[in-house]
């Protein structure tokens, strides 16, 4: 009898756990595919994109700028971002570089890059 009660309790518990798991909202799958570059490769691509560079943020120690190419329909976007240390700005490469190439998978616009404007 005890075994039967134990088995029933185990089944009820499993059912509750499964139901609770099923109710957890799963994060939405992204609607885009992306390739990301960093380091020297990203900096090289940044330099090879002939579009105006935008200043994102700057302070006494760092300056960040980015280049953005976005499809007019928003179906693809290329972002390259470079951060340069003020101390090495004149004679060395960036301290950080990053590029992402994103493309929509479902015909809906990909998320657009929103710069974090800090400083002046």
């Amino acid at each position, binding site marked *: 009898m005890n075994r039967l009660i134990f088995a029933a309790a185990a089944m009820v518990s499993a059912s509750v756990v499964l139901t609770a798991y099923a109710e957890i909202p799963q994060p939405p799958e992204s609607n885009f595919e992306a*390739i990301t570059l960093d380091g*020297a490769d990203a900096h090289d691509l940044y330099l090879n994109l002939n579009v105006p560079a935008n200043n994102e943020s700057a302070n006494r120690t760092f300056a960040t700028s980015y280049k953005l*190419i976005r499809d007019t329909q928003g*179906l693809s976007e290329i972002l390259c971002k470079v951060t340069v240390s003020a101390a090495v700005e004149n004679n060395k490469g960036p301290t950080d570089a990053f590029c992402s190439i994103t493309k929509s998978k479902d015909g809906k616009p990909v998320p657009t890059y929103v710069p974090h404007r800090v400083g002046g």
Partner: protein
Amino acid sequence: MKYLIYLITAFSFYGILARAEIPVPPPPAAPNYNEIVLQVNGAAQLYKALLGVEHLEKSLHTATSSIMENGKVWRASSGLSQIVCHHTHQIHRAPPLPAGLPPPPHPLLPTDTYSCSVTQSKDGKPVPQYFPHGVAG
């Protein structure tokens, strides 16, 4: 006895055939890179923005059209990523009209198409290098 001989002969043939089986080539290895292909507007913008030497891929002229295909390539010095873009410019020509007929009311406009392929290594080894016309060197 006769059936036994048949059986042995059949097994022998089976053994010979099994050994003579044509070796199945291994399946082609999966590419070592991820790829994103941009078309239309996105590719056009990238093509125009990408610095670098434009090379002629193909040039074809016929009585009714003229096609020129150009390419641009950016390859990271590490070889781990690469962008290959193509631009095809096609000029359509109206077929020659018999003498005395007026020209068509609307001139045929040229057609421009763009495509770009962005590849990035998945395993830390260089992605295959693109050569125009698919010719190495």
